[in-house]
């Protein structure tokens, strides 16, 4: 249960049509943002014993130049005790990557890179509002490899309006040919506050039907598992256990994490808090020497239990019943016996060795599973 640090870099050159993560396109604020970020780190100095992951997400962290990134990473080491084997991840946009850039990332201490490929189909990339092409993605992957990264993840999106099964398989095959250590394959979620959400409400676009999405999900899982990847979370695959994202797994088992930067979420004990979803406000609060926290919530045992249930049922690691009963004071097997038996019969979960594991079909309906 060693905590992790997340840093949100809230800048993008352009907004993608599907994305509802917080970011702004006014990059002139980057220097002031970094200044504030370092001050925010200082505020949390001494609050945590040790961290063993650092994750630079966004937004587009690759918009920062190598000096800026090095400054941030150095400051993390300056203010916080970090494990020697800390996993340091960065999300990059393929259009920003060059061989030199990738080398400087390595030099700055980044040892895991997650490339936002999304698709190898240029039509889909333009539908998604991405500013890179599939050729950019291929050269970015090659640059990252040539620079010496041995832990590379590719982010892909499927279930895009109009996308057929074949188009997705082609993207998946191309991605697979680079033998990345990690895959994130996300089914497109149409968020209401995005340009896609608007098109969806106006009836201009419609997501693929459920049966097709089911096929996407199942075939992706079968294919990648057959070639040696572990489907360890709903949307995540690792070439071996050591390549599972150490950082992201913290979100799924209530390990504490500290989120820095605008809109970043933190969790510790039974408390979750999050920063203002606004760069200006973030900078302003920090200048006033105030923590830039927008809100916090104290979770009841029941709420923690509910989260643990649905988070556990999203992962291959499943729910450790003994641990669950110890941490959340609830004997799942005893209290939910009937419904668990029913969904076990349906082949949605496996109950073994004092664990509940979701099956592949179970993962596909994990939201329903967690409503038991």
């Amino acid at each position, binding site marked *: 249960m060693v905590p992790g640090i*997340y840093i949100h870099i809230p800048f993008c050159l352009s907004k993608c049509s599907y994305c509802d993560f917080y970011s702004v396109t006014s990059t002139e604020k980057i220097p002031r943002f970094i200044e504030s970020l370092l001050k925010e780190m200082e505020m949390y100095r001494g609050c945590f014993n040790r961290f063993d992951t650092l994750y630079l997400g966004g937004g587009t962290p690759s918009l920062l130049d190598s000096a800026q990134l090095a400054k941030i990473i150095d400051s993390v080491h300056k203010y916080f005790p970090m494990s020697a084997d800390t996993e340091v991840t960065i999300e990059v946009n393929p259009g920003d990557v060059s061989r030199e850039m990738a080398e400087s990332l390595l030099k700055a201490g980044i040892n895991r890179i997650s490339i936002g490929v999304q698709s190898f189909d240029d039509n889909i990339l333009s539908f998604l509002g991405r500013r890179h092409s599939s050729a950019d993605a291929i050269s970015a992957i090659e640059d990252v490899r040539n620079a010496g990264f041995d832990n590379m993840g590719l982010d892909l999106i499927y279930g895009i309006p109009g996308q057929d099964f074949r188009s997705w398989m082609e993207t998946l095959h191309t991605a697979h040919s680079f033998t990345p250590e990690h895959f994130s394959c*996300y*089914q*497109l*979620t149409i968020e209401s506050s995005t340009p896609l959400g608007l098109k969806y409400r106006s009836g201009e676009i419609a997501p693929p039907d*459920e*049966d097709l*999405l*089911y096929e996407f*999900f199942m075939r992706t899982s079968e294919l990648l598992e057959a070639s040696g990847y572990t489907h360890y*979370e*709903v*949307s995540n695959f690792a070439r071996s256990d050591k390549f599972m994202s150490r950082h*992201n797994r913290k*979100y*799924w088992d209530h390990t504490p*994490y500290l*989120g820095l930067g605008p*809109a*970043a*979420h*933190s*969790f510790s004990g039974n408390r*979750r808090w*999050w920063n203002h979803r606004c760069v200006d406000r973030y900078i302003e609060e920090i200048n006033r020497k105030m923590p830039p926290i927008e809100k916090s*919530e104290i979770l009841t045992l029941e*709420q923690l239990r*509910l*989260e643990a249930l*649905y*988070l556990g049922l*999203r992962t291959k690691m499943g729910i450790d019943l003994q641990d669950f009963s110890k941490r959340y004071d609830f004997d799942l097997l005893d209290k939910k016996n*009937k*419904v668990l038996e*029913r*969904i076990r019969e*349906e082949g*949605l979960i496996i109950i073994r060795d004092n664990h509940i594991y979701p099956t592949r*079909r179970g*993962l*596909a*309906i*994990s*939201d*329903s*599973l*967690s*409503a038991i």
Partner: protein
Amino acid sequence: MYGKAFYLIMKNIRNFSIIAHIDHGKSTLADRMIQYCGVVDDRNFKDQILDSMDIERERGITIKSQAITLPYRSKDGKDYILNLIDTPGHVDFSYEVSRSLASCEGVLLLIDAAQGVQAQTVANLYMAMEHDLEIIPVINKIDLPAADVDKVMEQIDSELGLDPYMSLPCSAKEGTGVEDILEAIVHKIPPPKGDPQAELATTIFDAQYDPFRGTIIHCRVFEGTIRAGDIIRLMHDETTHRVEEVGAFLLPRQKKDSLSAGDVGYIIAGIKTVSDVQIGDTITLDKRPRKEPLPGFKESKPVVFASIYPIASDDYEELAVALEKYKLNDASFAYQKDSSIALGQGFRCGFLGLLHLEIVQERLEREYDLSIILSVPSVRYRFTLNDGDVVYIDNPAYYPDPMSITTSEEPYIRAAMMFPEHHMGAVMKLCKEKRGENSTLSYPSPGRIELVIEMPLADVIYDFYDRLKSITQGYGSFDYDILDYRQSSLVLLDILVNGDRVDALSQIVHRGSARARGLRACERLKEEIPRQMFKIAIQGAVGGEIISRTTISAYRKDVTAKCYGGDISRKRKLLEKQKKGKKRMKMVGSVAIPQSAFISILKSDPTQ
């Protein structure tokens, strides 16, 4: 300030009602007249003052009769007492309406200037004519941009057969034309007749419950005089009570020394619950009784039956308390204990009709904060058994062993409908589908048809009224009387969800309709029961034989793709909301059935 007015003589009294199609502005006009006459000062005024229940304000219908006394000084300088009796607006309560109208000498027939004459306008007009009332057409909402007063006047002439030049324009919303209406009430509606010295004859048009005083009888005195201290006799019930107080419907109620022939007012006589008096009964004096009661009395009998269950079985006691309280103010509602295998402890209830049922349901949920489920409504069937016994069954749970039944019978009604001529084909088709027989036609006015037809009540309560309204585009009016029991081939239709019988969904149906009803029930449930993690089979069965089935497919893909720092709380909140929603569902076996599924079975199908 009203004191003097109460001693005015009969010729200065006017008793009237406002009748209108829904949303034509009845309550707003009443509000304006109340304000004009200064009954309530503006500070204490709230809109739709007569519609005191939330449900009335929201649905825009009046459920309970209300009465109010308006003191009015006419332009001729004389003081008048105008008694406004507001009436409910639905066929379920047509008896209550008839008693209210019987208490008046005239009506304002309110017509929306933009919408023109509508079905209920006509239905109401005929009812008013039946009671020989003076009719004053009022064209409301003349302020609307879409108002077309000339066209409405033409309709008043051609469709209602009334003199359009008698009609009065007004805008209740803006308060224009209200004085002219008050003047017309004074000058066109005749004063009541009657002899204050004769034997007392008073008709009860409503009764309401007051937690401090018991039952408040709303009445119209036709003959004689009643005072506090009198011993009164309810002629139908043959009970006697000592009058504690009489008075007029001012806001608040105002006590008077007496009520005399022509008066509308209230009587308080230490009567505990409203069920101890019957609407339409005649009150006379015990020591000097009238020989015959006033005509028109009908015993109010429930014709539709359904069981009510709490969604959470812990709420049973609360439901019991709520029903007891509710019953205090609704004499036409009847209930007794009942239990269901699928739904647990509940109550079997009797209603005047489906709207009455919906209202009771809504009020229980709203005013008593209960979540309830209703079984499929039923009429009361009659079965003759092998051993000669005759049993009345209104609950499918008690359907007799089919082998023991020699004769089954169901109640029939005589339905009277009025609608524009060109809907004839569609209406006849509907009546035929509803097993209508022995129809007679008449043409009360050019272009309008009156159809009288005999139909099984069960088919009428099912979805008849909604569909009639829909196929006649709202112009069809409908009224009915219970006729008699007729032999019929009946079967018990059961609904099974994943093999478990949901007894609250069982229905007694005509053999010929069983398959269609079974299929529709299955389809309705399919729409309402949310998909779950496993397949759900819904079947209709008659005596073990499956006659209809549908399947709700299982979820195949239902998972949020991203679940990181910021997503976790959001997702948990969604789940918490879902869990709350699940509390409003009833578990049958492993299937969660939402309350709406039980209700949907009763609703008519808009696509038909």
